[in-house]
């Protein structure tokens, strides 16, 4: 026997269980419901419930990660010295989702350069180049043909860009019958060390625009004044490693146009390339500016991928001289390549594609806004504690906080002492001596990365307050002994044996000449 069941019609389905219920208003779901990504959720920028049971649920992945992150402040009993949290020094990504970790492991043994064998991985690279190029407003109109490639990181990307600028300049000069023996490049003295390397290795003279006591980025006027006929190009940094400030690419661009100067701009957006388009979409720094011919960015910084991927995009093939591109013909398929590396793993490029489609513009925007908010919160709190804030707020720079002690407070310790004190508490907050000509300004820097949630930020603030109290209570002698102790027993690099005495104390770099320390990137 079969029970016959009636299929309810639409009216029956939509009829309320209790009469009159349809008139009741139920509060709408909260607008910001992006909860599928841990650090993009609203939970990352709010306190972890501490004293009272929270009103609302928290998704399981988020609960897991938040608690795990909290626990990472614990010492690890397996280690001889307590190494608890080591993360505020560097821009490089340290968190990715489980799913993408799996993808990356599956692709470990794929050789990225082998297009023949791994066409799909190669295609994925092309998709990323296209997405990133468009994110930077690469021209896509009729006749446009922007080109780009993945690299191991921004260093390789910058070397390639310098090489392209140099070759193009040489070709122009040779065609005009001019001397090509003295190329130079104009850049800020706050550049990352790979710019110095690129200039040195490719034999291009470095021309620096120096920072001043209260200007930590290039001055557009001064920059343009340094340009002469041997200038292969200008480097403008979107987010310096010291203070995270965006250099004014538009002003440089406009001055070049106004004065009718024939040179090009490369934007080093190693850190800012994945922040500015989402946080300050109206800031003009990219291919919207006509003098900008190439841009690099690091996938492994705010691109949210584990180390080993960078990107470089050129406005058009005109800016990538053909003699630099090698064509490898293999099994009837032409491959054009412009890299300094050849075989390398495909994992990181795949990781980048995952993040791009997984998060979308919305996801990146939410995460970057969260980071900016956290940075602003930290910045305001430090200001309240009496520090001088050197970084920008409200998205006008990278989500990092650069700060120093107020000199008028006349403390008997410096930023390095505070860094060492914090180190003892398990925080790596690096102290730097600023770029040359800033009168030995010292500073501390905290990079707000995806996994630096508000709750962790509060823990840092608590420890900074504590360290200040401890330092205030010590005399000079004690501080010195303490510093020595931390250097020898807590920090790692001091103990490292791999440093080579033969190359110690070089005098040829900016650091060697001026005592500028390089910020970790």
């Amino acid at each position, binding site marked *: 026997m079969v029970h016959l069941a009636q299929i309810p019609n639409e009216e029956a389905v939509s009829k309320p269980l209790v009469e009159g219920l349809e008139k009741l208003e139920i509060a709408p779901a909260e607008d910001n419901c992006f909860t599928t990504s841990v650090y993009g959720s609203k939970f990352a920028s709010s306190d972890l419930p501490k004293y009272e049971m929270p009103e609302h649920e928290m998704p399981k992945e988020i609960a897991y990660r938040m608690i795990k992150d909290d626990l990472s402040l614990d010492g690890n009993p397996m280690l001889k010295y307590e190494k608890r949290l080591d993360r505020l020094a560097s821009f490089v990504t340290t968190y990715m989702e489980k799913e993408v970790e799996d993808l990356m492991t599956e692709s470990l043994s794929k050789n990225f350069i082998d297009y023949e064998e791994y066409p799909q991985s190669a295609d994925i690279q092309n998709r990323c180049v296209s997405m990133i*190029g468009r994110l930077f407003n690469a021209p896509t109109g009729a*006749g446009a*043909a922007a080109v780009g490639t993945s690299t191991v990181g921004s260093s390789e990307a910058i070397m390639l860009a310098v090489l392209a600028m140099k070759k193009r300049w040489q070709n122009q000069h040779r065609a005009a019958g001019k001397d090509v023996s003295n190329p130079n490049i104009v850049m800020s003295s706050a550049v990352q060390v790979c710019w110095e390397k690129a200039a040195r290795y490719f034999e291009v003279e470095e021309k620096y625009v120096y920072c001043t006591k209260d200007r930590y980025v290039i001055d557009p006027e001064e920059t343009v004044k340094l340009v002469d006929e041997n200038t292969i190009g200008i480097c403008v940094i979107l987010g310096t490693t010291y203070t995270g400030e965006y250099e004014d690419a538009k002003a440089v661009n406009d001055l070049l146009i106004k004065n009718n100067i024939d040179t090009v701009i490369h934007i080093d957006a190693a850190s800012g390339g994945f922040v500015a388009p989402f946080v300050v979409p109206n800031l003009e720094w990219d291919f919207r500016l006509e003098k900008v011919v190439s841009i690099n960015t690091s996938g492994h910084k705010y691109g949210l991928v584990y180390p080993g991927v960078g990107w470089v995009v050129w406005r058009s093939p005109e800016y990538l001289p053909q003699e630099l591109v*090698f064509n490898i013909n293999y*099994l009837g398929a032409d491959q054009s390549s412009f890299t300094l590396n050849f075989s390398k793993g495909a994992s990181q490029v795949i990781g980048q594609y995952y993040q791009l489609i997984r998060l979308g513009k919305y996801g990146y925007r939410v995460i970057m806004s969260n980071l900016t908010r956290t940075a602003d919160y930290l910045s305001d709190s430090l200001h309240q504690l009496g520090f001088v804030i050197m970084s920008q707020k409200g998205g006008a720079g990278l989500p990092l906080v650069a700060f120093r002690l107020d000199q008028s407070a006349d403390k008997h310790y410096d930023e390095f002492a505070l860094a060492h004190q914090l180190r003892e508490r398990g925080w790596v907050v690096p102290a730097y001596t600023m770029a040359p000509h800033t009168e030995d300004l010292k500073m501390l820097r905290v990079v707000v990365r995806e996994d630096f949630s508000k709750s962790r930020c509060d823990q840092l603030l608590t420890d900074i307050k504590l360290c200040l109290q401890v330092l205030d209570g010590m005399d000079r002698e004690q501080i010195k002994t303490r510093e020595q102790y931390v250097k020898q027993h807590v920090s790692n690099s001091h103990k490292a*044996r*791999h440093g*080579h005495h*033969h190359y110690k104390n070089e005098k040829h770099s900016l650091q060697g000449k001026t005592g500028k320390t390089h910020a*970790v990137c």
Partner: protein
Amino acid sequence: MSLSKHISADELLRKHQERYKLHSGRPGTSGRSMHVASPYINRYTAWEPIPKYNLPANGVDSKSAYQIIHDDLDLDGKPNLNLASFVSTFVEDEALRLTNENITKNLADSDEYPALMDIHSRCISILGSIWHALPSEKPIGSATTGSSEAILLGGLAMKRRWQEKRKAEGKDTSNPNIIMGANAQVALEKFARYFEVEARLIPVSEKSNHCLDASKVRDYVDENTIGIFVILGSTYTGHYEPVAKISEILDKYEAETGIDIPIHVDGASGGFIAPFCHPNTVWDFRLKRVHSINTSGHKYGLVAAGLGWIIWRSEAYLPKHLIFELKYLGGVEQSFTLNFSRPGYQLIQQYYNFIHLGQAGYSRIQRNSLSNARLLSNVLESTGYFTCLSEIHRRKGLHKYVPSITDDSDDPENYNAGIPVVAWRLSDAFKKNYPHVKQSSISTMLRVKGYIIPNYPLPLDEADVEILRVVVRESMSADLLEQLCEDIVIVTETLIASDPIDMAALAHPLRQIQEKSHFGRAAASLGSLSEHGSTSDLPKTTKHEHGQYKGVC
């Protein structure tokens, strides 16, 4: 001629997708608020193509994103059947676990990862010792992303040292040159192009084993020579270039002219073979003139892609001017690399291999590979269809096929030295008997079976000779080898029996597919940055002056 009208699948797809889009409001097409139960329920499963050129406005959940990319990557080849590449495709489970645990670590950040730095220096010491570097000379080295970076650094050091010497003598430094065989891998030429050094390519011939011809070196060097790249394990035929002989020639040259020319050995493949299989071949730091050596950890170092090494015999050969010191938090790091932030897990795998395999393990693995390569060579030659250009299967000193000689020794020292590569061509008798069979068809037909075995011409002076090449790696077991031998014979005999016109038809569409899938696709997606997808504006790549083909490494 409507019959031969070309159908564009892309165009048809787009047309139909457009039609679907008109029906909005389909389930699953809305964005982020969707509750996902299965990775195949998302808007990219149907109705919407996955984002290729534009960053999508909204994302998808992590499981779907994983599945999409995972499935997409199914179209990649199987690493183990790729017999064209030297790059290692097998990583042990334990090494993989270490990799996963350390995937976030940045090799550039020595302060944060001191243990990683320590492993780095241990690896350098180990490599230095197997290449006979003397601790008293203070050898120095660095990990790189691969041999390309290592070669660029090695060349740069030679250039700078030459410049400094010439400047000190008050001589001109505007025309440096570097010597290499015409069989050189593309990275060597890149060095010359990017760092503005004239590349002097010495022609290769059958007599010189299709690699650097020692007898011609004298004619190419002069006072502007910054150095010579000598390859241990030519990518074409696997021969070692005669490092010791070249060193001797340059010693004599120095005695006569006073000009001291250093050698950089590109041991990308051979650096991990020779020490274990050919200890009597003198090629490394035992020769005074060898200033630097590079190798690829990701080839016979048995590590996943992304690791190379370079070692200088003494810090004296690495000019200070090129080294940058980075200071932070009381620590100092010296750096001479072209990359900065990069993963450190390959390094951990390398160290894992060193301590896990040891000398004996490496030795056994490399000898197995050589023995498998010998077996394949012998089978191929004894069919009568083929002639081998690689010679690791011939008794030492013997350079042609003698059917009556069969060796069963396992010691690689009894055979001609080289890396486990088998390069062969159709024999002259075969070409005479079956002129309709094209060698490239063998490669194409094997590809259908899943093997990737490239067919390409020798370096420019011998470019009329084409070779098929198989790289024997540790993961090529005897079983796979047996299958391969069988398949090569079957394919060849099928070709013999085929009608030449049939074959021409077969080759054509396959060739098209290949071109579309690789350069064609790359071009299309780059070109598609422009809305009209015109690919003609792509940078015109440098055609090798003589149309030379390069072996993939």
